């Protein structure tokens, strides 16, 4: 950025510092649900400060195109934010990640073409490297996020897509991208090489995400979130803009932490998630063990009695609950039980939804106070004392084989110890397997009763039955 007047330049730099501080404070306030909203306002104000300051930049000649871009973006972004359903938050975040990555990549591309067209600009190696990094990470984030969006929106198959020589092809493409980038760093003036490089990066984004199954999307979204931050930071290195570098680093760190949490919750290494193609042949191993064991099927009336006479009930919601749009019904049931003096809590597994923390949002939307929402480590000790664990639409995260059976693919995954409750009621459509395609021994335990049917209909039936008890 050329700064004709040092005063304006410094003013802008100070405004960026203010913006960065507001971003950090905003994230800090997210540490408690009471201050979180204020935090978001802080971060948004930081962005406003940064944008207004940037408009003072003396390199800007015309505001017309800026206004056009902002107008289009604000309308689309505003519409998305208002229209999106809470169940569709993972797709929304994936899409936004993609746009963030794309913006960084476009900034890098524009800088490339500008430097390429202006021989007077002395290009340093580090700027060239930054341009390549921003382009690569930004483009991978963009197309990778679009594929993640497609999988979550079920526009394309949620199954892991695999084909022969997949990893070799990706490796070759990656090496080609590195080679092209190296060539460009050495001699910058090859627009066609740059375009080829951008093309490879875009293809790479698609190929890296298609072999990842729907169940692993929480990890992918977190990782892409991190990438979008890293792309921003790289763009910051290109423009030597500290506000971009700081924000990019913050978002990058956030994404890394969430990725780690998600991997730990699924007991998988990041490498395994990214390259393991988990869930490609799901369903094959399913029916093998189901054969001769018996399940106890009960009616809604039985369950209503069981719940009404319980002292404490722990509800274990899974993504199936959200799919059935039954959050509100479960909340109704909980209110009825509370009126009867039953203590109701919710046990939330880290991967209960389709992105980190998703289930909490879905329950909050249904007016469940967050003081009743407990994370896995807090609630696991309480199952032993609970009279009833009501499992709605959750499967793999309750599978005791993860604790006991070393041959199970889930072995070692942290689970909710539902089986330790005095009684377990599972509302489930059929005996079909979960996302991972693995049989759940929980359903054959003596203290387990199965209430077969659609989650929402069964919960509604419980809502009508409980007052009659």
């Amino acid at each position: 950025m050329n700064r004709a007047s040092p005063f304006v330049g410094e003013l802008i730099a100070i405004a960026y510092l203010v913006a960065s501080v507001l971003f950090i404070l905003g994230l800090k306030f997210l540490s408690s649900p009471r201050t979180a909203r204020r935090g978001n306002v802080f971060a948004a104000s930081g962005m406003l400060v940064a944008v207004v300051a940037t408009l003072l930049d003396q390199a800007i000649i015309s505001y017309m195109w800026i206004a056009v871009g902002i107008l289009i973006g604000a309308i689309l972004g505003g519409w998305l934010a208002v229209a999106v359903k809470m169940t569709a938050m993972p797709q929304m975040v994936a899409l936004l990640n993609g746009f963030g990555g794309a913006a960084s990549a476009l900034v890098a591309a524009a800088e490339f073409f500008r430097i390429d067209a202006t021989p007077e600009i002395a290009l340093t190696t580090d700027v060239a490297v930054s341009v390549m990094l921003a382009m690569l990470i930004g483009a991978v984030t963009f197309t990778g996020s679009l594929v993640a969006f497609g999988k979550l929106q079920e526009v394309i198959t949620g199954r892991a897509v695999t084909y022969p020589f997949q990893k070799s092809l990706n490796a070759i493409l990656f090496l080609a991208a590195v080679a092209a980038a190296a060539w460009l760093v050495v001699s910058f003036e090859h627009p066609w090489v740059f375009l080829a490089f951008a093309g490879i990066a875009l293809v790479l984004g698609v190929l890296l995400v298609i072999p990842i199954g729907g169940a692993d999307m929480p990890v992918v979204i977190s990782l892409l979130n991190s990438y979008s931050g890293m792309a921003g930071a790289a763009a910051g290195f290109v423009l030597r803009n500290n506000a971009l570098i700081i924000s990019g680093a913050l978002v990058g760190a956030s994404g890394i932490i969430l990725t780690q949490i998600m991997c730990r919750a699924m007991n998988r290494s990041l490498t395994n998630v990214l390259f393991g193609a988990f869930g490609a042949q799901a369903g094959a191993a399913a029916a093998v063990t189901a054969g001769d064991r018996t399940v106890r099927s009960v009616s809604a009336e039985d369950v209503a009695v069981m719940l009404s006479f319980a002292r404490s009930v722990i509800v274990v919601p899974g993504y199936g609950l959200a799919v059935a749009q039954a959050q509100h019904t479960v909340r109704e049931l909980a209110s009825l039980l509370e009126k009867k003096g039953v203590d109701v809590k919710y046990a939330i597994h880290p991967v209960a939804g389709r992105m980190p923390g998703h289930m909490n949002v879905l329950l909050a939307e249904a007016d469940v106070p967050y003081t009743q929402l407990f994370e896995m480590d807090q609630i696991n000790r309480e199952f032993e004392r609970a009279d009833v664990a009501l499992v709605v639409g959750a499967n793999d995260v309750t599978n005791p084989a993860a604790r006991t059976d070393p041959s199970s693919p889930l072995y070692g995954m942290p689970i909710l110890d539902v089986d330790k409750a005095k009684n377990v009621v599972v509302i489930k459509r059929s005996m079909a397997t979960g996302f991972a395609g693995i049989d759940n021994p929980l359903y054959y335990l003596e203290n387990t009763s199965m209430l077969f049917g659609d989650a929402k209909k069964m919960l509604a039936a419980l809502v009508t039955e409980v007052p009659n008890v």
Partner: protein
Amino acid sequence: MAGELLIAVYVFVLAMFVGFEVITKVPTLLHTPLMSGSNAISGIAIVGAIVIAGRVDSPLNTILGVIAVAMATINVVGGFLVTDRMLRMFKRAPDDRK
């Protein structure tokens, strides 16, 4: 120039540490709003995009700039608004609802 790069690297590394410190304190309860909110922050690329769109140095760059501004704005506006929409839903106890 090397000094400038070094300072940029300093800023990046220290900001990563701040990020780790601050974000490990965010409870899992709020991880979805954290993602959408941090996502909106990563829309800061808008700052670079604005300069490119306003510089009017070549038609190609202006087009790239406008698209970048639009995409970053979607990220910023959509991200902050949807985060606020979510955070509004988190309520404490049954009695102070509404």
